[in-house]
């Protein structure tokens, strides 16, 4: 039988199974911890740090940190939410996010996080980096201007689709998402129904010819902050 682990999340007693991450145990208890790179169908990656919580006072990523008996986890505190807000600010300024015409707007997890945290303008200067768009595939766009390097596509392609379409190349500010062909996406075995195509939290990987189908006012996060409803609301 699995061992029950008991810990405190923002002062509330939570019980989980041994081996679960803090995020999994919190989700089961109906407590939302903000996240971006984590996805319920993929191996946690621990890269975006939006899910940062304080475990006995030390910052840890809730999606990768296992639960343990008696730990004190802080999540919805001003201090932790400020860390998260700063990361979201950085993600906005280090890419090129023109929400006003982005097909993902209204259903974008990055934008929804910014809304949830009430961000009206990022505190860092805009970088306006040069990033390219790969429109070579007949059914799929890859717009690196909006990529937040969450690695969901990389993991989904390997773990779920059994392919290897996406991969990271470069390091630090040079890091970017690459595809497994010199001809761009069209040279890969990517298909529009692949999991890798639907898991992108932002408008970096989009299906062609379906944009703006949902009217403003009926999109995922038009009325409800991300994390309000059940976990079902994260990308397919």
């Amino acid at each position, binding site marked *: 039988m699995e061992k029950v682990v008991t810990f405190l999340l923002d002062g509330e007693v939570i019980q989980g199974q041994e081996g679960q991450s803090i995020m999994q145990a919190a989700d089961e208890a109906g407590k939302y911890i903000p996240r971006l790179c984590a996805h319920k169908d993929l191996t946690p990656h621990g890269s975006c740090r939006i899910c940062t919580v304080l475990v006995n006072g030390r910052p840890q990523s809730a999606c990768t940190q296992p639960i343990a008996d008696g730990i004190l986890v802080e999540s919805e505190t001003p201090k932790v939410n400020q860390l998260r807000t700063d990361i979201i600010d950085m993600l906005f300024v280090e890419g090129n996010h*023109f*929400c*006003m*015409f982005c097909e993902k707007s209204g259903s974008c997890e990055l934008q929804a996080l910014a809304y949830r945290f009430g961000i*009206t303008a990022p505190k860092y200067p*805009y970088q306006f980096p040069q990033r390219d768009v790969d429109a070579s595939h007949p059914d799929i766009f890859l717009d690196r201007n909006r990529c937040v390097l969450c690695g969901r596509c990389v993991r989904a392609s390997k773990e779920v689709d059994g392919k290897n379409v996406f991969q990271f190349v470069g390091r630090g500010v040079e890091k970017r998402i690459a595809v497994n062909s010199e001809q761009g996406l069209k040279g890969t075995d990517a298909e529009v129904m692949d999991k890798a195509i639907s898991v992108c939290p932002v408008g970096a990987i989009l299906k062609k010819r379906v944009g703006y189908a949902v009217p403003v006012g009926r999109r995922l996060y038009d009325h409800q902050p991300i994390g309000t409803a059940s976990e079902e609301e994260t990308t397919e």
Partner: protein
Amino acid sequence: MSKPKIATTSLAGCFGCHMSLLDIDERILELAELVEFHKWPINDRKSFSAQCAVGLIEGGCCNEENVEVLRTFRSSCDVLVSVGDCAIMGGIPAMRNMVPLEECLQEAFVDGPTVHNPTGAIPNDVEIPLLLDKVYPCHEVVKIDYYLPGCPPPADTLWEALVALLTNKPISLPYNLIKYD
């Protein structure tokens, strides 16, 4: 006591944010009761003749004139508000920020497929404000006190914010009124 004064301007914007302000519908009459519009595109006043309580800035800075106007607004308004995505992050005009300025001008005035320009000259008259290397968000040029995002911000966002400012309350926008599109 005289009514507080407001000033508004459109820098590198499309006037959509001003349209959204007019979209507060009949509340515009209430607003006119609360404030005096000192300098705004509707009265086309060229310069400030009094200090204003609130300045609303639409659009970012794409040329030297925008910078000058923005600086004048900063010194003539107690509270300065960036209204709309262009003021906040450059918006559509900032799409040129990823292309060197020279290439932009070359494409717009010489190489573009629909350009007719036999001399191949790029306009360079002293009357034309010089373009900046990039389009800058207003808060990267002067200090901005509040931000109202949106393209344009919903009329209700503008209304809520103005009423709060004019009644000396903090602006706190509910979830529905912070939008980036």
